[in-house]
């Protein structure tokens, strides 16, 4: 019995979240006394497997097959199903990436289990429980699987990534049986949309607006704040989904990643997919009428209040300060 962590790579490069998942797996391992194993999938992943062996793991196993060169949910699920059946880990830990969201629930279903997804912490007092956020961060829950194996994915940024160091772990190969006929989907090459005309990553100051603004007609309010500050305007996803601001102004996991000197989050609740795009900002100011909004956990300065009153007052104060 082991704690298995499934590391993610694309084109021979690690997804950094893999090592955050490894850190979570270490915590489960300490609590349960079961060793951590790492698996890496792909075609010709020897070098990566060797690289993984330098991390704090008991063993690294390479699931190597030409049909795993390109990610497909059918290929990955079949390969890991065979491996998990063979080694019977107690807990299987993944980084909660878009790729994992795409196949891990399919895999866990083959074992009659749900995926305990997007976990932010591991609690270990006697037994192990996983902490998840509900309601986009407004509620927490402690959860455990009714029986092993338990399938768990770890939220971005929830754990400090494990570091390499110490003795090299042994590397093994697991031979996967895969046939092209098992793979139903044909992925094309990933691409980016045409060059963005705004590069928010270079902005020194950003005023970012969320659904709290209520209507497109109210946008001039935050535009004014951005203007007096000399800041770029950005937004949370729903604002761009509604077409109120162009997609290229979206901050978050599916938008831009920014790290300005000051980030004003105006009427933004602070869902994780937004936070990952802006938490590297030097100073974060949040304006929100809900004192329990998760954005306050990320903020240095929080104003609990109605943005329709606070923002105009702020514009006046900044004008005064700059005069």
């Amino acid at each position, binding site marked *: 019995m082991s704690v298995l962590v499934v590391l993610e790579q694309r084109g021979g490069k690690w997804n950094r979240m893999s090592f955050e998942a490894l850190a979570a797996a270490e915590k489960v391992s300490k609590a349960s006394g079961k060793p951590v194993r790492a698996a890496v999938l792909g075609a010709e992943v020897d070098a990566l497997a060797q690289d993984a062996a330098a991390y704090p793991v008991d063993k690294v196993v390479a699931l190597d097959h030409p049909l795993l060169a390109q990610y497909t949910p059918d290929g990955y699920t079949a390969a890991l199903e065979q491996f998990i059946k063979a080694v019977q880990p107690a807990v299987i830990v993944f980084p909660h990436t878009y790729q994992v*969201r795409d196949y891990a629930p399919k895999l866990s279903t083959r074992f009659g289990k749900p995926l305990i997804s997007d976990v932010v912490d591991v609690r270990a007092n006697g037994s192990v429980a996983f902490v998840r956020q509900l309601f986009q961060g407004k509620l927490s829950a402690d959860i455990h699987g009714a029986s092993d194996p338990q399938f768990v994915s770890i939220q971005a940024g929830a754990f400090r990534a494990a570091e390499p160091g110490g003795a090299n772990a042994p590397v093994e190969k697991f031979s996967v049986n895969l046939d092209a006929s098992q793979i139903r989907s044909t992925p094309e090459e990933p691409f980016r949309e045409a060059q963005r005309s705004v590069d928010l990553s270079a902005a020194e100051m950003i005023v970012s607006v969320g659904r709290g603004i209520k209507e497109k007609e109210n946008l001039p309010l935050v535009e004014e704040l951005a203007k007096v500050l000399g800041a770029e305007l950005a937004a949370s996803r729903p604002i761009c989904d509604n077409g109120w601001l162009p997609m290229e102004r979206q901050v978050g996991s599916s938008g831009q990643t920014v790290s300005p000197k*000051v980030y004003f989050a105006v009427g933004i609740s602070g869902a994780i997919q937004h936070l990952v795009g802006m938490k590297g900002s030097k100073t974060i100011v949040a304006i929100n009428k809900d004192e329990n909004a998760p954005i306050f956990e990320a903020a240095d300065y929080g*104003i*609990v209040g109605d943005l329709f009153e606070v923002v105009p007052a702020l514009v006046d104060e900044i004008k005064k300060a700059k005069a």
Partner: protein
Amino acid sequence: MKIIVSIKQVPARDSALRVASGGKWLEDSDLTYEMNEPDAYALEEALQLKERLGGEVVVVCAGPERAGQTIREALAKGADRAIHVQAEEQALLDALSTARLLASAIQTESPDLVLTGLQSDDLGYGQTGVVLAELLGYSHATIVMEVEPQDNMVRVKRELEDGWFQHVNLPLPAVLTIQSGIKKLRYATLMGIKKAKTKEVKTVAGSPSAPEMVMDQVYLPQRQKQTLILSGDANKVAHELVEKLKFEARVL
């Protein structure tokens, strides 16, 4: 083209969340409900596909009695009929049990496409659609931003991380989990609301399987960071904030 859309009723976004005594779930009396937002986008995509290609849009929803209201809303927007799998909220806290209930209702319909939202706003498991695909034996794609059916295939545009996208081709039948923003949402018309009253809603009693996931307790998250919170009169807090930004953070 026959399209099933799975729609969940969730607590309204600005509901005050109060943990019920016993700490297992929320105080129900505080909550009002609405359609899960990504599901509204899944419905919109289904309706536009039907308008283009013909066929039928059937809504499936697992939930208690009150979910009927969200089902009517979907019918008012243009869905042709609905299946309401009746089950208590406690039985729907596990994504696998929920997907099993939905799968048994969908199986007999033999659709070409099943559209789900990519994630629920309350539980946020982000997996029910993928689990459904596995239970039904259908192909699937997640976080979908464009749907182009072609013969016995569908070509979709998937969103990847950091502004990357990818097209994927899948054989039908397929389950697609739809990302918010895929199309502009419509409102129900008065005519639509009227018509919805005459549309068929089949209710089936769901018999949930034993949960594989145990929710030990729910609680409000503890604050870990020292955030300086300013509250009170708008002019006063605006003044205080500007002082802080000027002299403490030194960013103005």
